């Protein structure tokens, strides 16, 4: 009963869903039919206005059952439209939709169903879901259960026939079994039983190739690559010497603390260091990585340049030339030469003991009297002062009226005279600071015979001082044509040489004889800018220093004896080692001092001086220091003189980038005087 109810009661139909889905394939009054062309099954349905082709998805089997085609109701309702397979809308405006077999019109159903009817039908008719509208005939067909089943089967992709077995055993026509009878009756070809020529050719080619060794037999699988044995079982040294000197590659440097994952804090970069590291070119960096700190091992990431570094090592191994570099492993202490201790070389000046103040400008020159009692100094303030050495008292101040370039004391102890060079004048002073005999002898020398006029070519004019100047002690004036830089006495005290450096003329050096008031120019030709000149203390030699060389002239023979080249840039002063007799040695030492001095001082050397008695020499420089050296000259001339710097004396203050300007030794004591740009003279004892 329930089933009945279900069937009858269309509103709660279980098929309602199905009906919904099929609702767009509406059917009205027209009758439908299944068109079965070949093996594709179409259901052609008619709408109001057009066609809707429903393709059933599967390919129908050939075996279409007879009873299926001969559906019972198709047979019963013998209505056949003869218009054929045409769009039925062509008949839209006609009352009929085609012609039957007899040629009579098939009329459309009288009343068209409207939406409402359709809806009612859908709601009430339990067979609505299986009702199909046939466009051809305009009638409505209700599908039977079998037909519905068939449609379902086809939709599922099965065969239409229920009874058809798709897996029936197949008949093997071509099997491995040899049949008793031949398939064909044709006699066999000749070529099927004589050997093939083509094959023969191929085989013979292969055979030839094998014979010739072109084709190799299949190689036995060689597994020996990964197997190892005792390679060094017989170590023979014969191979060792076989090949070249092999340099093993240096090992990779071992890591330091800063490469640790958890280094001590001082190895980490500060911000500045980091910034610097980032700025630098990778090749300039001291470390190729930034030290990092991780609080635990778990947090350490992979090193991004690991493969790079390994690769670079590989490149180094095969691309870099190798060289054995001998590392000098020298203890720096060993390099310092072993010199006698300065203590053993005493006496030499060590302490600054006196300062002579009084000048108001820098002191260019100082000179000690041969007795060692007086010190004369000439300054830029236009005065020459004479000091007592022991008390540092200024005994005399002589206004000379111009910056004093040089002051020199006559080396002859029998006279007491002073030569002063300023501007273009050389003054001869008699300070009258000795006992009467000496003073009178010096006066006598000055008086001399005022013999001849000076030779014309020298241009030097002698004149006597008068009045005020005479009172001050100035006795003679020698006017030069040019500015005089230096004035030097001969050891006997009668001659003196003056220097007027001028590159353009040959009139650079003048030699004056005091007793005869005569001047002469010893050189005919200009040999460079003369820096300073000097007489040899004992022998008749005259030294002229130009910028880079020293010329030695023999005064007796009137010829040049030697020319010496200095390796310093500028020769500024000369001094002699007085003990020694031989000229060459003397000069040797002079040059050595120059050389040494250049190295020791940081700035230009202003003056050098030798002690008359002690083997000491001193050098003054613009860096404000005086270096005292002890020089030992061996009798064996092959041995280099041993020079030991014994003291660096400091005391002068740097003013206007000038330090010490002149330096002299006391004639008898191991004392050294130095005059500086700071308007003082200092005595070191």
């Amino acid at each position, binding site marked *: 009963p329930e089933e009945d109810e279900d069937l009858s009661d269309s509103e709660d139909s279980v098929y309602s869903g199905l009906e919904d889905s099929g609702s767009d394939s509406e059917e009205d009054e027209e009758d439908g039919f299944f068109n079965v062309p070949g093996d594709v099954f179409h259901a052609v349905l008619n709408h109001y206005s057009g066609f809707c082709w429903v393709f059933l998805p599967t390919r129908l089997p050939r075996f279409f059952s007879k009873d299926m085609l001969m559906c019972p109701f198709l047979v019963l309702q013998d209505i056949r439209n003869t218009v054929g397979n045409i769009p039925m809308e062509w008949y839209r405006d006609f009352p009929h939709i085609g012609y039957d077999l007899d040629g009579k019109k098939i009329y459309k159903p009288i009343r068209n169903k409207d939406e409402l009817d359709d809806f009612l039908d859908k709601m009430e008719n339990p067979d609505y879901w299986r009702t199909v509208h046939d466009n051809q005939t305009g009638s409505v067909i209700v599908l039977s259960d079998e037909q519905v089943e068939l449609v379902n089967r086809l939709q599922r992709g099965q065969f239409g026939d229920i009874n058809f077995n798709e897996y029936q055993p197949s008949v093997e026509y071509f099997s491995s079994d040899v049949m008793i009878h031949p398939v064909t009756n044709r006699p066999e070809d000749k070529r099927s039983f004589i050997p093939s020529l083509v094959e023969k050719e191929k085989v013979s080619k292969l055979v030839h190739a094998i014979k010739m060794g072109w084709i190799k037999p299949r190689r036995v699988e060689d597994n020996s690559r990964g197997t*190892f044995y*005792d390679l060094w079982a017989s170590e023979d040294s014969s191979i060792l010497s076989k090949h070249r000197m092999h340099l093993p590659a240096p090992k990779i440097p071992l*890591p330091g603390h800063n490469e640790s994952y*958890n280094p001590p804090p*001082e190895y980490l970069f500060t911000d500045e260091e980091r910034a610097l590291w980032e700025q630098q070119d990778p090749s300039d960096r001291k470390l190729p990585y930034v030290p990092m700190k991780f609080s635990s091992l778990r947090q350490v990431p992979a090193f991004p340049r690991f493969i790079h570094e390994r690769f670079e090592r590989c490149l180094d191994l*095969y691309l870099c030339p190798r060289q054995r570099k001998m590392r000098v492993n020298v203890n*720096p202490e060993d390099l310092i030469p072993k010199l006698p201790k300065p203590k053993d070389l005493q006496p030499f000046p060590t302490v600054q003991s006196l300062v002579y103040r009084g000048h108001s400008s820098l002191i260019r020159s100082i000179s000690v009297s041969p007795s060692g009692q007086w010190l004369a100094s000439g300054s830029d303030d236009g005065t020459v002062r004479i000091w007592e050495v022991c008390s540092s008292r200024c005994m005399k101040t002589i206004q000379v009226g111009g910056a004093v370039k040089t002051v020199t004391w006559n080396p002859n102890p029998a006279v007491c005279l002073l030569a002063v060079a300023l501007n273009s004048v050389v003054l001869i002073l008699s300070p009258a600071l000795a006992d009467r005999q000496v003073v009178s002898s010096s006066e006598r020398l000055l008086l001399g015979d005022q013999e001849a006029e000076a030779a014309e070519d020298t241009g030097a004019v002698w004149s006597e001082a008068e009045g005020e100047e005479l009172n001050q002690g100035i006795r003679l004036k020698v006017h030069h044509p040019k500015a005089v830089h230096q004035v030097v006495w001969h050891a006997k005290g009668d001659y003196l040489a003056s220097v007027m450096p001028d590159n353009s003329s040959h009139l650079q050096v003048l030699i004056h004889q005091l007793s005869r008031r005569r001047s002469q120019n010893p050189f005919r030709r200009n040999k460079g800018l003369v820096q300073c000149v000097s007489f040899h203390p004992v022998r008749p030699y005259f030294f002229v220093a130009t910028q880079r060389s020293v010329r030695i002239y023999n005064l007796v023979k009137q010829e040049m004896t030697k020319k010496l080249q200095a390796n310093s840039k500028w020769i500024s002063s000369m001094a002699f080692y007085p003990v020694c007799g031989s000229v060459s040695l003397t000069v040797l030492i002079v040059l050595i001092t120059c050389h040494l001095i250049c190295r020791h001082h940081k700035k230009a050397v202003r003056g050098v001086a030798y002690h008359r008695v002690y083997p000491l020499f001193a050098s003054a420089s613009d860096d404000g220091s005086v270096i005292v050296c002890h020089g030992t000259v061996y009798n064996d001339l092959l041995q280099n003189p041993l020079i030991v710097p014994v003291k660096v004396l400091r005391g002068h203050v740097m003013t206007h980038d000038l330090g010490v300007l002149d330096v002299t030794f006391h004639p008898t004591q191991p004392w050294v005087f130095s005059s500086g740009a700071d308007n003082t003279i200092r005595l070191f004892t």
Partner: protein
Amino acid sequence: MGGLQKKKFERGSATNYITRNKARKKLQLSLPDFRRLCILKGIYPHEPKHKKKVNKGSTAQRTFYMLKDIRFLMHEPIVGKFRDYKVFVRKLKKAYGKTEWSAVERLRENKPTYKLDHIIKERYPAFIDALRDIDDALCMCFLFSTFARTGKCHVQTIQLCRRLTVEWMNFVIASRGLRKVFLSIKGIYYQAEVMGQLITWLVPYQFAHDHPTDVDYRVMATFTELYTTLLGFVNFRLYHSLNLLYPPKLDGKAMSELKEEDEDDYAMNSECYLEKLSALSASLSRVVSATEEEDAELDQFPVEGEDTEKMEAREREQKQQEAQKKLFEGLKFYLNREVPRESLAFVIRCFGGEVSWDKSVCIGSKYEVTDETITHHIVDRPNVDKQYINRYYIQPQWVYDCVNAKIRLPVEDYFLGVTLPPHLSPFVEEKEGDYVPPEKLKIMALQRGEKPANEQEEDEEEEEDDDEDDEEEEEEEEDDGGNDEEEETEEQNLKTMQEQSSQGKSLQVKVTPGKVTVENKARLEQEEKAEEKRLAIMMMKRKEKYLFDKIMFGKKRKIREANKLAAKRKAHDDAEKSKKKKARK
């Protein structure tokens, strides 16, 4: 007169060298082949003394090889193999082009291969030579064994590298040769002593590599080819020197133990063996059944007085080394899963400890976490949920630091969640005047057997010590510098004065006349000496002066660097202290 005019560049150094291109032409090899040959044979370019002469008057940049080297290469049988290979490639290409697959197959079967055994023997005529040069081989193999099996090189190479490195590690364990370990940011450095040679290698951390594009993997592969062969032969020899079986076999007992475990959980049967071996947990089986360790004692030779001291020192060193070898003996370690298992297992086993891990981490674990006899549990996380009472929970750095210090360090500094003490490089040997980090001093004190006092006091003391040390250092500097130039000493004097005044200490000048004179005397003497030296330096020859200046410059720079580090440390410590104080307040 007479005779032919001598031509330039036909004798002398010009004929001893050959440019790379000419060498290549002489050998009839392409550039990659030439490169390979050079790598395999260990030929490197030479820098001639007179480049212009060798370069026939031109100053162009060229690479020169020794002509002798190139002649030596000409007789190498591998050159023939290279040519064969070229022919093979050509034939193969042709066969492909004609789609003759059978020919392709046949050609492939006959692909020419070569062996490097003779080259190894030639390059390293004695075993010890090979051992000396094994550093790079190890580094390379360890790197290649961590590569993924994709693309960059043959899978077989990777497998071979892995096998060889595992064998090497097993050997080091068996010989107990490991000496130093260092965790750097690049990877882990190991140093082992094998047959008297110190061998250092670097293992990257276990991460996938980000393969750079600007690296030529062919060069690396060629090197690896050589290195695997070398390492294989070296391994063989080393195993036999210890009476171990060469393709290494695990000990029978260990093997059976391992078998009990469910093998099928892990690798395939073929890989299982290597996996077990690489677990590093089992000992290896010997050819001769293991006898007691015969301690080869140093024979006493009658020697003269001076040498006895040396002998004693050597003996002491030997003893220390023996002690180090037994560093972890009797300890049972358990590795948590986040620590680097292979490295730790290797290190611990090298020093006689027992080690295990979770079953799921790797094959070959010996005991469970629950084992009551475990003494040390290595963890690398802030804390652990379930802690057992009778074991220490420590961070992995403890193991490495112990190895480097050669003693078991106090575990307190390495507990979980504690800020670790810095990890120092064991490869740095500080000479006099170098900067020594205070942690190193501490460890050295521990090595000498001094017990650290209570934390707090010790801290204070240390600080004071440090201060004193600093002062001493500064004074030393003064000496060094003072010998050279007075200005610098003055500067430093000024500096020290300033520092002292800034530290609030009174200046060292005292008023009492007696003391002042005493100080002055010493000072004077010093000054005198300094002056003497300065004067002597003046008299140096120019050449020596140059060298001397250079050496002194280097020394000064070193001192400057050390001072900088010390200053940095001091600043850091001060900052820490002030922080602490603030925290206390």
